[in-house]
């Protein structure tokens, strides 16, 4: 009897066959730096956001992320989003596909990366992976039964500028978003982040609690209005300390309590995430499919 391979088997079987790669991840949840996934490696990530909501129910939004290093200058990602609004319901809220391209071959004083994303999400999406335009807290108070009937097709572009100097990473993202449904204007936003490992030198021993395994920092993000009303008016902004723990067992854990900076922002967002990187995923898939190298 011929064994049947379904899509899920093809997707996850390679994960059983590949080696794990030690991660050296930044702690950011929202901000991107200029480092891409190593070629051929797959990073599987899960993130959660707990958010407080005035004039509505608190929520727990979550997303799964598959990040693949296509080449040393191109990383592709797929996101699947969902959320639970307490006292309401749990809903799948859409997907995103994203590509990041490194624009310069070598390290420079500032390193630019171009980011392009297409997302199809419902109005119930609450992962707050980016804040753009006039996004404000009251947008998220709508019950799921109503908000999920709204469907957004968005094109999102980002220019990522990043630099690492004496262990400090400084990253700035400028984003422009166009909702492709209806005549919506381009909306804008930003994210800023800085981080540093607790120790710059590695210890000779394999250890979980060595200071070099911890990266701490802070990020700030928010909206900048739209084409017709650019600026800070009716926008929301957040400040969030971030910490990542890169375990020798190849897992990375992230934690970030975020605080709204004005009355349009959620008062508190607690984010956490877990990720694991898999070596040579691409080659393993190719071998499974019978490709010759």
């Amino acid at each position, binding site marked *: 009897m011929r064994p049947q391979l379904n899509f899920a088997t093809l997707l996850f079987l390679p994960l059983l066959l590949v*080696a794990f*790669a*030690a991660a*050296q991840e*930044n702690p950011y949840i929202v901000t991107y*730096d200029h*480092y*891409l996934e*190593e*070629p*051929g*490696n797959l990073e599987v990530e899960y993130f959660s956001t707990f958010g407080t909501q005035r004039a509505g129910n608190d929520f727990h939004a979550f997303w799964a992320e598959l990040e*693949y*290093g*296509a*080449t*040393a*200058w*191109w990383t*592709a990602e*797929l996101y699947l989003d969902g959320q639970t609004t307490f006292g309401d319901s749990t809903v799948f809220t859409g*997907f995103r*596909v994203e*590509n990041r391209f*490194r624009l310069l*071959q*070598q*390290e420079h004083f500032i390193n630019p990366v171009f980011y392009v994303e*297409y997302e*199809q999400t419902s109005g119930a999406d609450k992962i707050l992976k980016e804040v753009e335009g006039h996004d404000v807290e009251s947008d998220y108070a709508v019950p799921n039964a109503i908000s999920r009937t709204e*469907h957004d*097709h968005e094109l999102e572009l980002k220019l990522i500028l990043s630099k*690492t100097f*004496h*262990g400090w*990473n400084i990253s700035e993202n400028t984003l422009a978003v166009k909702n492709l449904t209806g005549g919506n204007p381009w909306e804008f936003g930003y994210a800023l982040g800085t981080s540093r*490992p607790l120790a*710059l*030198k*590695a*210890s*000779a*021993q*394999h250890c979980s609690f060595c200071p*070099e395994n911890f990266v701490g920092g802070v990020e700030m993000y928010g909206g900048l209005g739209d084409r017709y009303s650019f600026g800070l008016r009716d926008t929301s902004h957040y400040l969030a300390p971030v910490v990542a723990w890169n375990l*020798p067992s190849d897992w990375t854990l992230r934690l970030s309590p975020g605080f709204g900076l004005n009355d349009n922002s959620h008062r508190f967002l607690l984010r956490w995430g877990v990720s694991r990187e898999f*070596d*040579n995923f*691409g*080659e393993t*898939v*190719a071998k499974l499919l019978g*490709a010759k*190298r």
Partner: protein
Amino acid sequence: MTSAKPWLVLVLLSQIAIPLAAQNSPSAESNAPRKFDKSVYLELAKAPAKAARKRNPMERDPDAIAAGAKLFDQHCAECHGEQGARKGPSLRVPEVHDAAPGALFWLLTNGVVRKGMPVWSKLPEPQRWQIVSYVKSLVPFAEPAP
């Protein structure tokens, strides 16, 4: 929504298939450094003289080689190790052993992006020097394997 489904499937499949194909395409393969292909080591000669002259601040650190070995195992062995896929060139060759530490540090920092080696400036400078210490400690093979 219904009318959008066919092209959505196309978008999702292409997002998975094209990056996988890029990683495994013949052009990617031909661009990838060959094991023991001497030409790949010419990348070291591209280090600016000022960068190549830099001294390794970890060279007197008794733990540098051990720490570098750990870092190498975590981040580099996947491509350059003696086990595993070995997508990258071996580092146990005279070209690497005899290279200036500063040139190795420069190459590690900047990568060779067009040939598949990512930049490693995300590792703090002392860790990159620790890796250089370890790589310099590797004894070259007497005769490259065929």
